[in-house]
């Protein structure tokens, strides 16, 4: 029995972290937030094999597990790195493989890091502002809100029936407009479909669900990384900052805030590991664990993001320290792919407590 990361997984984590330390510093993230692109970061991650993680070996990938994807997501969250990882490397390959269709060419391009696939799922999870996606024949109409990855080459779109379609970003009928959010470490867009060519990937709801589950676990892992980084920054700051002739880390009021963050966050790490493992190995528990993991990480991270900022005092509120980028990343992850109250409701249905 061994519940933890293997040597290979620790190596993967260390390699990705080392690359991000060098190439996705806070200064580099600020460049992206100010309008720069993420092309060099993604190209570097592609050299490490990151986009190929979940693509099967016989389709040009590495064929690793959802847990490995969660490990990388945690690194990216820790560095609040702008990348198309969630859509391109996690959700799209999962959908394409699960669909059973022949997508060898596209999967090979994903693995090589030369094709980015965005995700437009909000209308299949919880529609807001009355947005909806309509597919008639092989043509798509309507709109999707808050699709992620503004620079994608194509989008995986889910309609209200949870059917999946692939559309090209350069389709003449597609209008893509940037939707500014508080989170400047990733960009979301509104996609308006005016007679767009829609290639059906799957009408099997199970394919949508498998794609959503792994996306949620990757988001939870991203949140884990971001929250852990905020806690680490808070502890470090408290050790340096002196008031009343002593480091504020020696005041119990401050220590207990940090202890509470650590105590809530530490079980989250095991939860993300288990959820990633369950997705591949424990089908009976996979879906319900994915829901609880997504929702629980959102709650713990909300507490950590607030508390870590408070430990920094006034500096935490400024742009100088940049802590707010992590705060907002956690906030965005909380809402993406299902807000915690709705996700817990899904868990209740999966546990057989209610019917819908």
């Amino acid at each position, binding site marked *: 029995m061994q519940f933890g990361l293997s040597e290979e997984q620790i190596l993967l984590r260390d390699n990705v972290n080392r690359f991000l330390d060098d190439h996705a510093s806070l200064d580099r993230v600020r460049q992206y937030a100010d309008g720069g692109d993420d092309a060099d970061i993604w190209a570097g991650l592609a050299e490490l094999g990151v986009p190929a993680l979940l693509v099967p070996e016989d389709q040009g990938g590495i064929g690793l597990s959802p847990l490995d994807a969660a490990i990388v997501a945690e690194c990216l969250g820790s560095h609040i790195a702008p990348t198309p990882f969630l859509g391109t490397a996690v959700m799209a390959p999962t959908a394409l493989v699960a669909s059973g269709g022949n997508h060898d060419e596209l999967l090979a391009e994903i693995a090589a890091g030369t094709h980015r696939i965005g995700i437009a799922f909000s209308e299949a999870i919880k529609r807001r502002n009355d947005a909806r996606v309509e597919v008639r024949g092989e043509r798509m109409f309507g709109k999707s809100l808050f699709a992620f990855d503004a620079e994608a080459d194509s989008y995986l779109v889910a309609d209200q029936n949870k059917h999946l379609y692939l559309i090209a970003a350069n389709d003449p009928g597609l209008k893509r407009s940037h939707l500014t959010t508080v989170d400047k470490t990733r960009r979301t867009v509104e996609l308006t479909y005016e007679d767009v060519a829609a290639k059906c990937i799957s009408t099997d709801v199970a394919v949508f669900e498998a794609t959503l589950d792994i996306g949620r676990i990757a988001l939870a892992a991203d949140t884990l990384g971001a929250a852990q980084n905020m806690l680490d920054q808070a502890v470090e700051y408290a050790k340096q900052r002196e008031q009343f002739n002593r480091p504020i880390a020696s005041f119990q009021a401050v*220590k207990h805030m940090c202890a509470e963050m650590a105590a809530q966050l530490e079980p989250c790490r095991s939860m993300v590991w288990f959820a990633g493992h369950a997705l591949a190995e424990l089908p009976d528990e996979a879906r319900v664990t994915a829901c609880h993991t997504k929702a629980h990480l959102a709650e713990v991270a909300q507490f950590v993001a607030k508390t870590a900022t408070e430990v920094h005092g006034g500096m935490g509120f400024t742009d100088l320290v940049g802590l707010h980028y992590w705060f907002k990343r956690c906030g965005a992850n909380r809402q993406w792919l299902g807000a915690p109250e709705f996700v817990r409701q899904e868990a209740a249905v999966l546990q057989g407590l209610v019917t819908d």
Partner: protein
Amino acid sequence: MDLSFGPEYDAFRSDVVLFLENNADKAPKGSDLRGQTAKDWQKLLIENGYTCRTIPKEFGGYGAEPDIIKSRIIAEEFSNARVSPGLGGQGISMLVPTLLEMGTQEQKEQFIRPTIMGDMLWCQGYSEPGAGSDLAALSTAAVLDGDEWVINGQKIWTSTAHIADWIFCLVRSEPDAPKHKGISFLLFDMKTPGIEIRPLVDMTGQANFNETFFTDVRVPKHQIVGERGQGWQVANAILGHERETLAPANTAQTRVNALIELMKNETADGARLIDNPVYRDRLMKIQSKVMAMRFNELRVLSARLNPGQDPGLSRMITKLEGTELRHDLEGLAIDVMGEIGLAYEDNPYLRGSGSWQRDYMYFLGLIIGGGTSQIQKNIISERGLGMPREPKFEKAS
């Protein structure tokens, strides 16, 4: 990542399940520490290696090599079957491991067998009115007079003192030494003249604890574990272990399952409470936390089995998070029932034999006992996160 224990352990689990099927009817009901049924059950469990597993045969145990997985399987299956896992109490859980670690051969021979067989019941004399979180500040005095210690002072929170045969007790034997180096660990008979016990009724309405007073209590000099002044190390040899096991996540999941059943059966205005989205969301939030703690315990277990694995803070946080979680969980059940949740003792509308209220209060007790939540946070921040200790105030002299 490998969550299987392997075929050897699957077979072991089957043995435990079979044993329970064939013998569960012999188990005592409730938590009687002194009855003959409980003693007979204890004997049967020891013979089969389901309790006192690693205590050497020469002292009355089963004499197996330590095996964390087997111990866990036994605990899981007895819990699943809701069958008594054998005698508990502080003699078996704390004194016996302490004696095995630090006791003399004579002490092991004299005390371990009657203790594990249920013939010798112990209480623990650690806390004092002036020494709670700061336990090492204890002041109960032991002065050597010829071949006897003469003990004067007061202990508090001594559970089972009123029925105990013996006490293991921390006393200040070296008043001039630094506070952690002036303590000794003594064992003595509760029938010794000079001991007075007063029950301490707690918020549950029961007297789970006592105050214990010592006036010129004379104890033979050799009834000491470890050397004079070593009592703090003797006591700490096993204290950490106690904290981890106060609120296991598997038990919490059992309580969540019971809460789900409760919410399916209880109604408000005729509607089932499981169908109320507000209560249901609170339930699911608790379910998430219990899940996270179950996986955290897997990590703790794994780090024990695989010495190279970094446990992070997984061990350090279990007492704090586990006890707070149980308190919240039991409290939710009370909220769900509304006024019926207030029912207690002989109320005809009582649900679950009153366990929800009792555990709601009991776990508040555990949040405080065994190192308060605030002390746990000090430990986590200082030892876990490397934050400095609060500067100490020296006593003005």
